[in-house]
């Protein structure tokens, strides 16, 4: 059986890639994908522990997170579509009206 810490290391790598992606990319969709990467890294952690301890809590959490991620994706994509309609771009650096 694959040891649990393998999963955790993979999860940490995925999460870090996600964080770097969110912080460095300008394209809204890419940022969004990076967030999904972070979410799924967390899911992986839950699953790894659920598997190790033979408990169902982690699995239930993952279902919730997937549902929320789907909802978030719907809202987020709708925002980007609207942004594109108005600005002809989804570059998040262009959407900075709310500043001092």
């Amino acid at each position: 059986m694959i040891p649990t810490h393998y999963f955790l290391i993979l999860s940490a790598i995925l999460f870090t890639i996600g964080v770097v992606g969110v912080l460095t990319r300008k394209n809204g969709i890419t940022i969004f994908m990076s967030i999904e990467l972070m979410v799924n890294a967390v899911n992986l952690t839950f699953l790894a522990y659920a598997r190790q301890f033979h408990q169902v809590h982690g699995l239930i959490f993952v279902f919730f997170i997937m549902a929320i991620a789907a909802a978030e994706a719907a809202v987020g994509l709708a925002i980007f579509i609207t942004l594109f309609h108005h600005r002809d771009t989804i570059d998040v650096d262009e959407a900075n009206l709310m500043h001092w």
Partner: protein
Amino acid sequence: MLDKLWLIPILPFAGFLLNGLFGKRAGKGFVTAIALLATLAAAILGTVAVIQYNGAYHHGERHLNVVYEWFHSGGIGADIAFQLDPLSIVMLMVVTWVGFLIHLYSVGYMHHEEGYWRYFAYLNLFLSAMLILILGSSYLFMFVGWEGVGLCSYLLIGFYYETDYAPAAGKKAFIVNRIGDFGFLVAMFLMFAYIGSVDFARVSQVAAGGGIATGILTAICLLLFLGAAGKSAQIPLYVWLPDAMAGPTPVSALIHAATMVTAGVYMIARSNVLYRLAPSAMMVVAIIGGLTALFAATIGLRQFDIKKVLAYSTVSQLGFMFIGVGVGAFSAGVFHLVTHAFFKACLFLGSGSVIHAMSGEQDVRNMGGLKSKIPITFWTFLIATIAIAGFPPFAGFFSKDEILASAFVTPYFPGVGKFIWLLGTLAAFCTAFYMYRLVYLTFYGSFRGTHEQEHHLHESPPTMTIPLIVLAALSAVGGALGLPHVIGHNFLGEWLGHVIPEVEGTHAEIHIPASSEWTVMIISTLVAIAGWFLAMRLYKDRGLASDQAFEQRAPGLAHAIENKWYVDELYAAIIVRPLAALSRFFWKGVDAVIDGIAAMLGFVIRGFGEVLRFFQTGNVRNYALMFFIGVVVFLAVFS
């Protein structure tokens, strides 16, 4: 009508609303009709109620008309309730009918005024508040009317609001009255605390039952008297009344002579049981009344504004009324209130007629010789003067005489009573003197005004002369209401006796022996004749020359009287200016510190905001970075 007493004050109030809301657009005809109809309707309904009352009650019981329960909380409560009893009836008749006459007079007097609608709206509101004051069945409801008349007094004194002096006089009246109202309020709190009610009948009943300590009763009475001294212009709170002459003359007649200023006398007569149980408070009332009567009369000796003379005369006459209620002759005090309403309203309206004829001139130094030019005004003014000076058989003689005789024989404080009688008699001498001086300076001699004024001289229109004639007639025969026992039947005294119940250890009425009665009457008459004779010798032919001669002979005294004994200056020095300085200290000193602290807090927080706002770049990735750093720091600290 007896169960609809509330209609009486409501009608003038409706007049106030109609004239106040629509009067400006609707024009003078509408305003006149509404104002006069509302007042006349109140007077007629009042009279009907009085007739029905006479049919229903025969021993002066109180008729109570509860409209609804105002509030009830714990052991205390009060109703919106009107009452009718002999005292209320006397006041009701005076207020509504004299009020109507003065409304009628105002139609002529105020005809050229810009704020005609405003004037009548205020005047109707005043009448409404005054009727609540006299018909209310508890101290608290009375206080509603008390404050209402104070408000109207303020509004009408400041009627000519474009001037400097009128609004200032209005404010002065209002503020001085606040001092009195404070006393009234605290007295009511004491009643709630120790008697558990503010209903007139209940308070009297509990007090007569003997359950209340004399100290508490004395405190209540003195505090009530503080209220009365404010409203009825007694020492030390009389200073607002002479200034109140800044208002239109009919207002001076109605509010500042005939009705509102007598509210204090009414209140004390209403509280007669309390006062009789607290003789030391009565003595204070009587002494203050006596001092005010004499003090104000001396100021009246040398004033040149026709209305100012009458104003000080009013203060002095109110002093007489307080002597009456103070020595225990409550019906005599109210009797003088009634006759004073007749002759002083007549005098004020007469002075208004003179001012009208003189195109607004008020200084007697510029008048003279008006006797033949405005004969109706002259004759009515003269009759009222005879009445106030106290010549038998005119109204003022009998009421003043009853007061002085009662003071002379009062059983409560015999020695002090004689002293008060002396004060009153001296004041009566001054009264006769200054009133005849005014008559001689105004109506006799030669005209001292400008040619233009002389050209304009004219008798007033009938709306003004009819009230004058009616009031002069009442001044002449009004004394018949209360003849002394040695001459005839004291109708008013008996009628008012119903509201002055027998109470253990007090005197419901003051028995005046015939010898004292005659002595006082003869002395009063001689004093009045002496005052008149002196005034005639000095002013009938020589006119102003006498005043100038007096000024040359005793300039200090002359200036002191002319400047009202410098009382206003004294008050300014010991009260107004220190108070203003204290206020300035609070404003510039204390207030600045408090404001400074608040402003500093604001400044600091604003500074933080100034720095922090630079984090609000509007760039999503910056926010994400902050978020990331935040999480890292959080984890580093807490794990």
